[in-house]
């Protein structure tokens, strides 16, 4: 194979794949069998970070960017006049092996434009994974895209070689999907998700009886939603996310601020800024759902259809629920500690351990790593000093904003209100 040609294909097909933001390589345990190559010990590794600050963990490429669909938000849609390329199965296998051997990557994330048919495309993706596992004895991480509309049989086979499978829902609302991806049917996205979910459940229950049952998609499945392309509210986005977490037992839902890649009257204009702050707030909300015991209806509802951009969603929630505070750090149960602004789960664990030995005061909390600039208004501890003034939530928010700095603050400085 010609080196220059491979380099060109790599350029085109990595460039086209980069809008798929998942790069996780965690959650799968796969031992190195018979002195082969690679393993996954459950902990992902980010081998590098691009200049946009995103993790590079997997070789993320499309098999091809030829596509029969014409989804408005997608850079590889058929009406877009761009360079097209396609990798051969063996080329992807060789690149993956060689990059892996040099410790560049944790594995492969293979997606594809849809050529000929869904099944035809899915078949090729499965062929790459199968070859890596069976012929090359490769035990690194493999993430395959589930092609919307692919048959259940192919999805079942895919899960035998891949660690993770994902299908991107992309547009959080059905009306948005109809507007921007008229050739795709909502059911086509759901079908492979359902097949994978059933595969996982089936193999897990068989494994309980027969230990040697092969692994099926051990890192589960994930999906991605574009935000800011169709005027949807944060509530639309997060209620959809909560639905997919529950209904299809998703490991992750990713949120991708829409990056204008095309001039289309249905979409934000080219050059519009990527909604990075909004994306950040959605991820914070996602974490509150998965690790902090929040129900989505507490954070977003009819009165509050969008997240507060000024402050993080937990602080925003706490400011609306002042009657629950202040909490005593030395007595409050774990579930409640997790709800205090400025205290993350790591601090929660540390506090619970440390308070068995002595009562904790402000100094202890600062050293443990609590963000006191926010937390101090919501807690009491082993000290006679705490916030005793009756402050309105609005005033409190102003005080916290004045005494803190946020990474997005310079872009949104004008939104701040001044308080005396």
């Amino acid at each position, binding site marked *: 194979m010609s080196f220059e040609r491979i380099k060109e294909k790599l350029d085109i097909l990595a460039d086209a794949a980069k809008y798929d933001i998942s790069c996780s390589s965690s959650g799968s345990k796969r031992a190195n069998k018979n002195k082969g190559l690679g393993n996954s010990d459950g902990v992902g590794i980010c081998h590098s970070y*691009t*200049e946009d*600050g995103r993790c590079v963990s997997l070789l993320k490429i499309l098999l091809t960017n030829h596509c029969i669909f014409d989804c408005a938000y997608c850079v590889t849609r058929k009406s877009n006049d761009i360079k097209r390329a396609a990798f051969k199965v063996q080329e992807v296998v060789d690149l993956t092996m060689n990059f892996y051997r040099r410790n560049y990557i944790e594995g492969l994330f293979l997606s594809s434009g849809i050529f000929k048919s869904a099944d035809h495309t899915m078949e090729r993706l499965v062929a790459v994974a199968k070859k890596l596992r069976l012929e090359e004895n490769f035990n690194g991480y493999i993430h395959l895209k589930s092609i919307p509309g692919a048959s259940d049989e192919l999805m079942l086979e895919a899960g035998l070689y891949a660690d993770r499978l994902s299908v991107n829902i992309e547009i959080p609302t059905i009306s948005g999907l109809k507007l921007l991806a008229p050739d795709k049917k909502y059911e086509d996205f759901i079908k492979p998700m359902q097949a994978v979910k059933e595969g996982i459940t089936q193999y897990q229950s068989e494994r309980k009886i027969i230990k040697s049952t092969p692994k099926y998609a051990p890192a589960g499945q994930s999906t991605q939603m574009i935000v800011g392309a169709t005027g949807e509210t944060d509530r639309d986005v997060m209620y959809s996310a909560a639905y997919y977490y529950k209904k299809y037992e998703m490991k992750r839902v990713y949120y991708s601020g829409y990056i204008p890649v095309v001039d289309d009257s249905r979409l934000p204009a080219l050059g519009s800024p990527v909604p990075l702050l909004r994306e950040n707030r959605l991820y914070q909300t996602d974490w509150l759902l998965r690790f902090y015991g929040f129900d989505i209806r507490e954070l977003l509802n009819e009165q509050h259809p969008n997240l507060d951009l000024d402050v993080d969603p937990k602080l925003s929630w706490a400011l609306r629920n002042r009657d629950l505070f202040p909490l005593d750090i030395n007595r409050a149960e774990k579930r409640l500690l997790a709800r205090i602004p400025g205290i993350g789960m790591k601090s929660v664990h540390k506090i619970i351990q440390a308070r068995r030995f002595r009562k904790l005061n402000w100094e202890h909390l600062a050293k443990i790593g609590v963000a006191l600039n926010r937390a101090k208004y919501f807690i009491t501890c082993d000290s006679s000093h705490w916030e005793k003034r009756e402050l309105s939530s609005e005033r409190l928010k102003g005080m916290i904003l004045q005494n803190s700095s946020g990474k997005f603050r310079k872009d949104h400085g004008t939104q701040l209100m001044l308080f005396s």
Partner: protein
Amino acid sequence: MKKDSILAYDGSFEGFLTCVFQTFEQKLNVTAIYTEDNIQQDFFSLPEPVITDLKKASRVKQALKTKLDSGGRRQLYFSFLSELPGIELQLLQYIQLVFNTNNFSTGDYGNPVILRISQTSKMVSREKHRMEAFVRFMLTKDEIYFAHIEPDFNVLPLILPHFESRYADQKWIIYDLKRKFGLFYNLQETNYISLDIATRVFEKNYQSSIYSVSEIQFKELWQQYFKSTNIKSRKNLKLHKQHVPKRYWKYLTEKSSLHN
């Protein structure tokens, strides 16, 4: 009360544990522990040389096993590998706490000694993880995947199991230029080695003499990938540098040629 003592040891973990043994056995009041090649002369007291004794070291290890869970012992060893100035004395204080406190717990974060060791081991563990990520092998003409690094802490012993189980079907060397020793896996087992290469590894002539043309091409493919997978409209150099601190750039294939 016994007079203050200063101890000097050979820098090995067993040597340090021998210091611990001696401190308990002779009921010393230790005010400083130095490695032999890093002795700070004190006007009032001469450092007392401690000769590494594997038996004494293993007795300390055994005793620690009865009082400290595996997580705690891991914190102890990780913190030792930080090589931070004064870490030995802090570890000695920690071990004294372990033996002298009823129901000692590594979770007593209100105690500054315990919190400090927990935080130090966390720092070392981050560096270990970074090295598992940032090592970049290049295939030499004699079929060995070679990488050199200069970690902030002495993490080579910690990353050994990871690389051994992952790259089981290829020969590889990871060399620590700062500490002048490396790991060599020969398809059967991994050994510690030392090489005389420190000054030459960055020279172009030296590189082209040990690496083949196809190796330079793979490097270029990786650099191409790194460039193509970046989204320009999301540029965030502050975050980039936070994740990949500049001091590591010269060892990273994707960063080096861009900034040489």
